[in-house]
């Protein structure tokens, strides 16, 4: 009985030590448009309030800049403020994220997270599957 208790304690200590360094991961969901990309192509439907195009660009000094309706935001807090006030006025307005290939995923997630936090109803990712004509894939 004593040896069994020893071993049980040993295993317990091992698992406690092993779980200490474990980082709990969360998940950020996206709802992609199912079906072929041709079906996901956004038809030029007239939106009463238009749509918000956010273009993420990686500058030469490795900084990510967001371009929203022809205005550049290098400060993320400023972009967040604009998006939040926009979503308060019209949450139904579709947001389309056009992301340059060189933009790090961390920056893209940050902007997408900001859009979700602002409570926009639909967030899309613009893609170029055949690299000739831009199309948009539903992101939320």
């Amino acid at each position: 009985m004593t040896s069994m208790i020893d071993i049980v304690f040993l295993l317990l200590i091992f698992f406690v030590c092993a779980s200490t360094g474990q980082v709990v991961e969360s998940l950020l969901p996206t709802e992609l448009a199912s079906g072929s990309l041709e079906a996901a192509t956004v038809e030029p439907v007239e939106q009463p309030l238009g749509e918000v195009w956010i273009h993420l660009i990686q500058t030469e000094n490795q900084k990510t800049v967001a371009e929203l309706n022809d205005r550049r935001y290098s400060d993320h807090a400023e972009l967040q403020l604009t998006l939040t006030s926009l979503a308060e006025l019209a949450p139904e307005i579709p947001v389309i994220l056009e992301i340059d290939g060189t933009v790090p995923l961390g920056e893209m997630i940050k902007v997408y997270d900001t859009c979700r936090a602002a409570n926009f109803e639909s967030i899309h990712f613009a893609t170029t599957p055949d690299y000739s004509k831009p199309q948009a894939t539903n992101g939320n």
Partner: protein
Amino acid sequence: MKIPGRDRGRGLNFDITPLIDIVFLLIIFFLAASHLVRNEAAEAVELPTATQSETDPEETPRRLVITIPADQTLHLGARELTQQELEQALLAEGMGEPNQALEVRIRADKSVPYQVVEPILVACAKAQISKVKFAVLAP
């Protein structure tokens, strides 16, 4: 004069068989555990942070985990694949009707450029996989 001593007649029966069993079991366990830990360390990714993440997501019957470390290699589960192989694997998994029971989790390093992730999103859309989730850390 009789000197008292040990009674050697009966002896001490000490069965070490279960002890050997347990020691071997522990050796195998620690070897396997350390091997797994080493494999995990090789694919360490620095996840991005997000405030709108789900800490307790609903479980889906089938889940594909795509890991993209900072070196931009693509791993589907434990297998390292090329981009074309990954796209084919996603298409093979998601063939048929719109598949709500299949979920794709992308565990990508925050330094990975979007051009590595974009083809995976496009492949998921082509394969009719709508549930795509990014692994993130809560701030």
